[in-house]
Structure formats: structure tokens, C-alpha cells
């Protein structure tokens, strides 16, 4: 430690970075533990990452593609359409829900040892991101499977651009996760409220329906389009399902939204983290 007060300030400022470097192994341990423990006692283990979206997609395809056939109009391949929306939405809701609980669930550690607390929401988003990447295998499987049928999806080089919406979604999840984890420390109700919100979000995002097919009030449609998940999923579908370039407006909007979320989240977290110990 230095006697010079000038140097002290610098030390304080770079604490965030030096903490991250020092505790980066903690981040990998949190991610590893989340993935390991999640499926530890199940017979099929990590296969559930693939099986779960597969089964829910079958159910959704039966319900919305079969019974309510209308929602599939104008879509070249409804199952792929559904799967694209479903996988991305799932990653968003899972990761933010887990990030939200992460600080409260690690109360035992936070109360006893100094750790950079943002590692917990961040680690939970990353572990969900990894299971999400694994679950994309299902999508690849369907794309390959359909290529032998008359419902084949055109695969173009644009499919490589699908990393862009995925990256934006990751940023969004980190931001929202930080905001929610801070809020949940002070109000436990937020967790229940957010469950309901996620259900609303599922229907407010064109996952099972096509926005242009619906007879919607102009304002409702505008509201749905303001949802950053809509922009992200649209971009992803353009790359994977339609094989074309995505609308850049979607990119700018969702990216700006996500970055603002991260900034708000980081600021809230930084401001409130010293009080966490008094509330958990």
C-alpha cells in the first residue's frame, strides 16, 4: 500500500479490474458448478438440455401448428420458426431468473468472505449461455433433418451472422440479470412478480405466432415491436430460417437497449452492493 494519496485513488479505481483478474477462477467455478449440479441426479443428465426444448417444441407445434393452424400461415417451416423463438426466449428467461436468485442464494458466502458480488449474476448468465449453446444442437438437427424433405430451409452464408443476435441477447441478459439481482435482494416479491412477467413476455414476443398474421390493435403491435426480444429473435430467424440479411434497425435498437440495461444494472449493483449484506 502506498502512502501517497494520489496513488490511493488509482488503486481504488482499478479495483474492479484487478478483482476480476484475481477472481476469474471463481467465475469459472460458479459456471462449472451450475452446470454440474443442475443435472447431477437425473438419469439422462446433460441430455435434458437437448430433450427439454425438443419436447416442448413438439407440444407447441402440435398446439399452435395443428389445432390453431392459422398461426403458421406464410411461414416456410413452422417448426424451425417455433424453435428459433423458443430457444432464445428460454435462454433469456432462464438466465435472468437464475441471475435474479443468485445473490440471495449465495448469502452464505457473501456474509462471510469478501468476493466481488457481480460474479454471481454474471456466472449464472454464463452457465445458462453454455447450456443454450448446447441446446442449439437441436436446431441444427432439425435443419439437417428437414433438408431431406420438401420443407427444406435454405441454408445460406447468412447463417453465420446468427452470432450477432446471440451476442446481443447475451448482453441483454447480463444487464437485466444485474438489475433483477439487485432488486431481488431488497424485495423478495420481485421474484414472483418476474415469473408472471416472463409468462407475459412469452405471449408478447412472436414465438408461436407471426406478428403480421394477427389482427391486432396498432398500439399493441407497436408495443410488441418495442420488445427487444422481438428484434433479436427476428434477426436470428432472418439468418437461420429465411437465409437473408437481417434488418439493421433491429440490430441498433436491440443493441442500444441491451447496452443501456448493462449500464443501469452495473450502476445499480455498484451503488447498492454494500447494502446487500444487511438484507440477505
Amino acid at each position, binding site marked *: *500500500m502506498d502512502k501517497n494519496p494520489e496513488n490511493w485513488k488509482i488503486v481504488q479505481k482499478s479495483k474492479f479490474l484487478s478483482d476480476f483478474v484475481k477472481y476469474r477462477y471463481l467465475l469459472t467455478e460458479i459456471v462449472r458448478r451450475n452446470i454440474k449440479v443442475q443435472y447431477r441426479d437425473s438419469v439422462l443428465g446433460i441430455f435434458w438440455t437437448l430433450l427439454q426444448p425438443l419436447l416442448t417444441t413438439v407440444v407447441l407445434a402440435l398446439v399452435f401448428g395443428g389445432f390453431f393452424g392459422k398461426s403458421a400461415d406464410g411461414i416456410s417451416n413452422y417448426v424451425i420458426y417455433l424453435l428459433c423463438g423458443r430457444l432464445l426466449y428460454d435462454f433469456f428467461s432462464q438466465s435472468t431468473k437464475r441471475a435474479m436468485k443468485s445473490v440471495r442464494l449465495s448469502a452464505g458466502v457473501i456474509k462471510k468472505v469478501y468476493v466481488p458480488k457481480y460474479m454471481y449474476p454474471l456466472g449464472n448468465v454464463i452457465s445458462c449461455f453454455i447450456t443454450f449453446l448446447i441446446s442449439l444442437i437441436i436446431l441444427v438437427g432439425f435443419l439437417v433433418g428437414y433438408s431431406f424433405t420438401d420443407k427444406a430451409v435454405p441454408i445460406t452464408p447468412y447463417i453465420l451472422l446468427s452470432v450477432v443476435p446471440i451476442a446481443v441477447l447475451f448482453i441483454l441478459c447480463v444487464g437485466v440479470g444485474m438489475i433483477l439481482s439487485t432488486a431481488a435482494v431488497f*424485495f*423478495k*416479491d420481485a421474484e414472483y412478480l418476474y415469473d408472471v412477467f416472463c409468462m407475459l413476455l412469452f405471449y408478447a414476443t412472436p414465438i408461436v405466432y407471426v406478428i403480421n398474421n394477427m389482427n391486432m390493435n396498432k398500439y399493441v403491435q407497436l408495443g410488441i415491436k418495442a420488445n427487444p426480444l422481438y428484434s433479436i429473435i427476428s434477426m436470428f430467424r432472418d439468418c437461420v430460417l429465411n437465409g437473408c440479411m437481417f434488418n439493421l434497425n433491429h440490430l441498433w435498437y436491440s443493441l442500444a437497449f441491451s447496452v443501456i440495461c448493462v449500464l443501469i444494472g452495473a450502476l445499480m449493483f455498484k451503488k447498492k452492493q454494500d447494502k446487500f*449484506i444487511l438484507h440477505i
Partner: protein
Amino acid sequence: MENNIAVKVDNVSVMFNLNKEKVDNMKEYFIKLITRKLRFTEFWALQDVSFTIEKGERLGVLGFNGAGKSTLLKTVAGVLKPTKGSVEVDGVIAPLLELGAGFDSNYTGKENIFLYGATMGYSRKYIEERYDEIVEFSELGDFINVPIKNYSSGMRARLGFSIATAVEPEVLILDEVLSVGDAKFKAKSEKKVTSMFKKGVTVLFVSHNTPQVRRLCNKAIILDHGKIIAYGEANEVCDKYDELVKGGKK
């Protein structure tokens, strides 16, 4: 901060808001905010506490329940931010507050060694180098590959103690942890801590047990209602504390 000082606690005060009822849901919060019933009682757990520990010094912290001992240790460990004042610590700090706080009960002992080490900010390589030493000291043997939800509380504490002392900290915080395990392990852990003293580690030790403080520490303080009421050589302060205990019994 001068070079020979390891811990500097400067005018530290810690305040807690004790609300009459805990408001942790939004409905109650808003109702009380509107009806202006959101009242807090201020409670100062520590008031203007200042002291320094020189490198290699071993400070015992004595005090009755609720005197603010744990709050003091938490501020030194960096877990709790003081409301006023500042705490400066020079060097790597190893908190031995409540062993096994960072354990995951679904994890095996081996996995927990890495998790706990990571929580304390060590790299994988560093923990791997000390892995054998930790397992040997904990005397767990084959149990190391069993999930720790099946451990007895003594086994857990032994594992926690072994990990926390396997590293080479410069400042060690001991919160009544030397009462871990059976008599054999107790002797072993005290020996381990004494050997760390010989390496010149700085110690903050909280205990009710004055003989232990006399044996392990060279300086001591007494905390009472958040204030330091005595500071000095361990033996003198311990005498004072013993008198206080007798006085309380009258």
C-alpha cells in the same frame, strides 16, 4: 500507511437500521411509505473504534455477546463497509469466520476444495499445488470423493479449516475456530496456527476464552457496546476482562 503496519482501523463506526418489523415485500413497503410508517431505529454496533496492528502482532478481541466483535471482524475482512471511518489492510487476508461458508452440499469434498479456494480468490493452479496437503491435514481419506451433504459437522469443519490454513495469508482472522473437531484435531489445529505465527503472520483472534488469548496473543482489546474500553498487553487486558466477568456474576 507506514510499512510495519498490517491493519489500520481508523475511527470506524457501523450503524444498522433496526426497523421494528422487517419490510421485505413491496406491498408493505409502499403502504408504509405512503402512510409514513417507515421508521427505523438507529443502532450503532461500533462507535469510533480505532486501533492498529503491526506486522507479526497478534491481537485478541474480547467482549461479551453483542459487544460488536463479529461486526469488527467483518469490517476488517471487507465484508461489511463501515458507515464512517476507514479500514486499511496490507497483505493477503484469510478470514476464518465460520468455516465452510462457501461449501456447496451437492459437491464432493474434492470439488469443494476448488470452489472454496476460488471463493477466497486463488487460482486453480495454486489450489492444485496444495491439494494433497489439504486432504492429508483434513484426515478425510476416501471421504474426499463423497458429496459433503453426507459429512458430519466435524468433518465439514475440518475440511474448512484445512483449506483456510493451507494458503499462506499475511493477515489471519480467527473467530473462535480453534474449537473445531475432536480433542485430537483441536490440538493439531492449534499447533498449525502456532506454526503460522512463527512465520510472522498477523492475527486477529476473537474469543471468550482468556487462557487461550493469553497463550496465543500478545496484544488484546476489550469491546463493550461498540466501544474499545481497554487496549494493551494481552495479559493485562485479560486480567481486566476476568475481573469484568466476575463483576458481572455478582
